[in-house]
C-alpha cells in the first residue's frame, strides 16, 4: 500500500472500529428494548397463577403475546387485557389477586356489558391502543380521553363508581332511571324538579334564554371564563360551581343560585359532562321502557 493510502487507513481504522462496536451495541439495545416489555412478566406470572388455581387447560393453552379486544362497530381496540389478564375469570380466580391480574369486580354488570361487545375503554376511558403502563393509563397530551382513575375521582371528592356513571350515560342518556346509576338518576330527577328546561334547550325541548345544553360535555374549556373560579380550571369545576352558586362564577348571569348540596351539584355535573356528540350503533342504545314519554 502506498504511504498515502496507509495514512488514511490508519486514521479511519480506529473510528470505523469504534463505530462498528457502537452499531452492534445500539442494535443489541434495540433488541433488548423490544423484548423487555412491561407485559411479559405479568403474562408469565399469570400462567403460573392459572396452574396454581387449577385452571390447567387454560394454563396449557396460554400463549404469551399482545392480546386485544377489537370491536369494529365501536372502533375500539383495547389492549388493556394484555396485562389485565384475569378480567374474564370472575368467580374463578380469587377476587383479591394482585393487579394487574385481578378479575373484574362487577360480574353482574359484565353480564349485561360483555367484554366482547364493550371492551374496556368505553367505560373506563384511557388509551386502549397502548401496551405500556403510562401510555395506557396516563397518556398526557397524546390522548384526549383520560382514564377515570380512583385518584382522578378522589380529586373531585367522588368514588370511581360515581365518576364512571358519566360514561354510562353516553349510552343510557335517554333513560329516566337506570339501575346502578344513582348519581345520574338523581341528576335527571333534579333536572325535572328544578325545571332547567324553562331556560335551557336540551334535545329540542326547552327554552331559549340560556345556552343550549344538548352537547354540554363537548364545550371547549378554553372558551370559558374562569376568572371567578377557585381551584383547577377544568370544565368539571366550572359546571360544578354553576350548581352551587352560578352568580359567584358569572356575576352577570341570570341563572338563579340553586344552592345545591355538593353531592347534588356533583351529580348534575356528571350529567352535563355526559352529554356529548357520540353516536353508537343501534344495538348499543338501551330500548326505552314501554311507557316512556319523551
Amino acid at each position, binding site marked *: 500500500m502506498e504511504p498515502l493510502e496507509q495514512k488514511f*487507513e490508519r486514521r479511519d481504522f480506529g473510528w470505523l472500529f469504534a463505530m462498528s462496536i457502537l452499531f452492534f451495541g445500539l442494535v443489541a439495545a434495540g433488541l433488548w428494548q423490544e423484548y423487555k416489555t412491561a407485559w411479559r412478566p405479568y403474562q408469565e406470572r399469570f400462567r403460573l397463577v392459572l396452574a396454581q388455581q387449577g385452571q390447567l387447560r387454560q394454563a396449557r393453552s396460554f400463549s404469551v403475546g399482545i392480546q386485544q379486544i377489537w370491536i369494529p362497530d365501536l372502533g375500539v381496540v383495547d389492549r388493556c387485557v394484555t396485562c389485565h389478564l384475569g378480567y374474564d375469570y370472575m368467580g374463578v380466580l380469587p377476587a383479591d389477586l394482585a393487579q394487574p391480574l385481578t378479575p373484574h369486580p362487577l360480574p353482574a354488570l359484565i353480564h349485561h356489558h360483555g367484554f366482547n361487545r364493550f371492551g374496556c375503554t368505553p367505560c373506563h376511558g384511557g388509551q386502549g391502543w397502548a401496551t405500556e403502563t403510562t401510555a395506557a393509563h396516563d397518556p398526557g397530551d397524546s390522548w384526549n380521553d383520560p382514564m377515570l382513575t380512583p385518584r382522578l375521582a378522589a380529586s373531585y371528592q367522588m368514588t370511581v363508581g360515581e365518576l364512571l356513571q358519566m360514561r354510562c350515560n353516553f349510552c343510557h342518556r335517554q333513560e329516566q332511571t337506570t339501575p346502578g346509576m344513582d348519581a345520574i338518576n338523581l341528576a335527571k330527577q333534579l333536572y325535572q324538579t328544578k325545571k332547567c328546561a324553562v331556560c335551557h334547550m336540551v334535545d329540542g325541548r326547552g327554552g331559549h334564554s340560556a345556552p343550549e345544553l344538548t352537547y354540554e*360535555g363537548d364545550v371547549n374549556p378554553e372558551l370559558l371564563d374562569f376568572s371567578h373560579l377557585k381551584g383547577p380550571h377544568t370544565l368539571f369545576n366550572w359546571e360544578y360551581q354553576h350548581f352551587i352558586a352560578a352568580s359567584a362564577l358569572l356575576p352577570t348571569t341570570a341563572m338563579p343560585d340553586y344552592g345545591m348540596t355538593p353531592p347534588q351539584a356533583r351529580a348534575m355535573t356528571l350529567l352535563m359532562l355526559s352529554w356529548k356528540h357520540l353516536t353508537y350503533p343501534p344495538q348499543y342504545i338501551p330500548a326505552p321502557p314501554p311507557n316512556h314519554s319523551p
Partner: protein
Amino acid sequence: MNRRLQAWWRKGLWAWNPASERESAEAIVRNLWLHWFPAKVSQRSMSWSYSLWLGTAAACLLTILTVTGVMLMFFYTPSIERAYGSIKDLQYAVSFGRLLRNQHRWAAEGMVAIVFLHMARVFFTAAYRGPRALNWLIGVILLLATLLLSFTGYLLPWDQLAFWAITVGTSIASQAPIVGPTIRYLLLGGHLVGQQTLLRFYVLHVFFLPALIWILFAYHMWRVRKDGGLAVLESGRAARLMQPKAMPASKSYSLFGLTPGTSVAVMSSMGLEESEQVPASPTLTRRIALVFLVVFNLTLALALLFDAPLQTIANPAVTPNPAKAPWYFVWLQELVASTTVRLGDFTLSGGLLGGVLVPVILLALLVAWPFLDRSSRACEGLWFAKERARQNLTFLAISLAIAALIFIGVFLRGPYWHLYWLTTPRPTMPRVL
C-alpha cells in the same frame, strides 16, 4: 474447505478490498456499486475539515429514510379513519415498530438540518463558481424537495400536530398573489384539509418526491464528477506550477520500421499528481462506510431514546393553542405573524410579506448568486476567503436570523402566540377533567 471458503469470499468481495492498485482501478470499472466513483480521488477531497462530509451524511440519511420509509409503507394506511390507528399500531403492536417510526422521524429532521448545513458549506467555500453553478441549482431544487418531503410526511400521522401544521403551512402558501389560492386548492384537493389532502400528500411523499430526489441526487453526483471533483481541488491550482515532465518512452512506427522515441505527452494543470491521489476502493469506500455508521448510529440512538411526537387524533373543530408549523417553516410563521402592515385603511397582509415575499426573495438570491458573485476564482475551495467576507457575513447573518426565528417559534411561543422565556412556566390550559 477453509481455502475454498476463502477463495469464494475473495471472488465475491475482491472489489471492496483490492489487493493492488490495478485491482482497485478494475473494481471501479467492473463493480456495479463502485462504477460511479472515479478510480482515484485526491487526498484533499478526503479532508474532514473541508467538506465536513455533509453531503455524504445527507445521502446516508436519504438511504436510511428510504429503507425505513418503505418498511413503514407496509404498516401505514393513508385514510383519515385509519391513519392515526395505524401509527398507534406501529408504536405499540408492531415488533420494532416504535424504533422504525422513530428512526424515520429523526432521520427526517436531521436531513433538513444537514442539507441546509451542506448548502452553507458550499456557499462559504465558494464551491458553486464556474461550471459548478449548475450543480448548485440542482442542489437548490434538492433542498426544496427535502423540505417538501418533510412537509408532506408531517401530515401522515393525522394527529392534531399534523393537521394544524399543514393548515398553517398551506394557508401561508395561499397568500401568494394571484396563484396562491389555486396552489392551496391543488395541494389540499379541495378547500379543507381532509381525505384528499392526506392521499395527495401520501403519494407525493412515497413516490414522486423520493423519485425526484433520487434522480436529482444521481445527477448531482454525476455533476461532481463532471466538474472535476470537489472544489477544494481548485484552490491552489494556480500555485501548482506546470512543469514539464520527463517524456514517457515508447515505440513509434516509421517508414523504416519500429523506432524508439517519445509519444504524445499531455501537459495540463488539470492533471493531479499521482502522489496526491488515493484509490477510491477501499479508501473512499471505507470513509463513506464510516460516515454511514456515524449517521446510522446517531439516528438509532435518538430512536431508542426519544419517541417521535404524536398528539391526539386530528380534530378540525378544535385548534390546539398554539398551532405551529413544522420547525423548518416556523420561521416563516414568525414572519407572517409579525409583518402585517396597516396604513390607514390599507392592510398589507403579513402572509404576503413574510410568508411569500421573503422566502421568494431568499430563493431568488440563492438561485442567482453564482451568477452575481464577482469575487475572483482564486477563492474557490477556500473556507471564508477574505475577498468574500461580505457575502459570507451576509449569508451567515441571514442564516442566524432564520435560526433565531426558529428558536423563538419553537421554544418561546406559548398559548395565543404570546412570548414566554424558557424558564417562564406556560399557563396551564383548561381541561375537561
